[in-house]
């Protein structure tokens, strides 16, 4: 066999193998999506959005409590996590050039980003739930915010650093004070990237279950009081899906479907921002 033939055969083998692997991966993805969409849409109806949780076998059961709880927890987490993350990222990029402190914060934040979310749940359990004496929506929001901060901090830092320093200098050269340079020029230049980071950060925490189990726990009924235990789509999904009751399981599918669409939506919007930015 000539060297050339060997090479062609080898090439074909590798290509076939990698193509097959790609299809296996894609196959699983579409399988999951297919099952999710099939079961989710089947379970979906208007009543789900109107009714609260109910005992198994009960006609009028729904997910309103979990939807509202999820939105509230994510909203509060966003309200805490986004300003802190963006401001910390701004500090790293704009004020901490070359400083030891900034480098340390960057490293710690990278470590935090890879910390298992259940550990953060346990931490919040220890510092908020135990002193308060009970689970609460606030504790859930705090746990999600802690997960969100390093993600937003990192993307903000990276995106602000992408803004050319000549742009900052040009603003300074016109007599702008530093905070105006940051707000009016640097933020503007990095807007799409920072927004994408925020959306991806929200999407990331919206799908978290483990840290909520320890913190906001669950509530089968409608509750908008953040200082009490609170339902969320993820925990509800976990409870319903693992229950033996068929109608609960169907609600679990609906919760999974709604959550997935929400997260998918955030991801798509985030990516569109970036694409639009690049297209310019």
């Amino acid at each position: 066999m000539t060297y050339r033939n060997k090479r062609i055969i080898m090439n074909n083998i590798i290509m076939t193998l990698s193509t097959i692997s790609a299809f296996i991966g894609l196959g699983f993805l579409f399988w999951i999506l297919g099952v999710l969409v099939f079961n989710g849409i089947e379970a979906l109806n208007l009543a789900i959005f109107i009714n609260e949780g109910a005992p198994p076998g009960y006609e009028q059961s729904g997910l309103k409590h979990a939807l509202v709880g999820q939105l509230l927890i994510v909203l509060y987490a966003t309200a805490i996590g986004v300003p802190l993350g963006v401001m910390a990222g701004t500090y790293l990029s704009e004020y901490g050039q070359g400083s030891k402190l900034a480098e340390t914060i960057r490293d710690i934040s990278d470590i935090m980003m890879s910390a298992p979310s259940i550990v953060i749940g346990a931490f919040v359990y220890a510092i908020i739930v135990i002193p308060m004496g009970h689970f609460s929506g606030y504790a859930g929001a705090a746990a999600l915010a802690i997960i969100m901060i390093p993600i937003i901090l990192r993307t903000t830092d990276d995106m602000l650093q992408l803004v050319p320093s000549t742009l900052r200098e040009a603003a300074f050269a016109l007599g702008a004070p530093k905070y105006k340079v940051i707000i009016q020029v640097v933020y503007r230049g990095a807007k799409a990237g920072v927004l994408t980071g925020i959306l991806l950060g929200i999407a990331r925490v919206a799908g978290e279950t483990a840290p909520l189990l320890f913190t906001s726990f669950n509530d089968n009924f409608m509750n908008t009081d953040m200082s009490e235990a609170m339902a969320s789509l993820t925990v509800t999904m976990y409870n319903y899906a693992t229950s033996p009751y068929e109608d609960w399981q169907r609600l679990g599918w609906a919760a999974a479907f709604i959550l997935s669409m929400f997260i998918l939506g955030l991801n798509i919007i985030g990516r569109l921002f970036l694409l639009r930015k690049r297209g310019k």
Partner: protein
Amino acid sequence: MATIIDVPEEKVLHVNNFEFTYASSETPNIKKLSMPIAKNCVTALIGPSGCGKTTLLRSFNRMHDLYPGNTYEGEVLFEGRNILDAKEDLIQLRTKIGMIFQKPTAFPMSIFDNVAYGLRLQGIKNKSELGDRVEKALKDAAIWNEAKDRLKHDANGLSGGQQQRLCIARAIAVEPEVLLFDEPTSALDPISTQGIEMLVSELKERVSIIIVTHNMQQAARVSDYTGFMYLGELIELGETEELFVTPKEKLTEEYITGKFG
């Protein structure tokens, strides 16, 4: 030794025994430099790469203060005071001594907002006043005709040459006394370059201009005085024509005849 003439005109800036050292540098990057800058004239700075032209230029609006650890020594007199003084109000100074960079630096906002940026910083809020001054600046920077129908559009949609003229409009809108140009045409095509050069010649009626350039023809075309720098020192400052035709210093002659650089 250096040959530095005195200028007959009024001096807008006066550099005396100026030294500058970057934070990371052991020895001064600009050494004991003295020179007058004539008012309402164009002064060109030429010299081989790394000789300190940019460094000197950026000292005049204290740009080096944006990065920690850089040190100034000596005097740069402007309006009767030493602007290197620690008490100097940098924001005030930078509105009086503007700067145009090598690459266009249009802000990510509309054409109008770009030009209005410096004006707004000065607290001008009145819509019609802003409008008038933006229009005037754009006209003075010879970009009004191209920009007038798209003032609300993103400035990044302009060509490189147009963006550079927009930056000039933005800088002159605040009516500075001095404008510093650091190789303003090195990123531009010949036609845009010609446009900027014409603009520089026109602008000197109102502002004093210092321009760094690698292009000796450009220095000869636009400037009244030319300074030749080498290794952080000013070797020769003279009337442009004289410096290029009959340089006094051997180094200057070698540089302008292309023997090194």
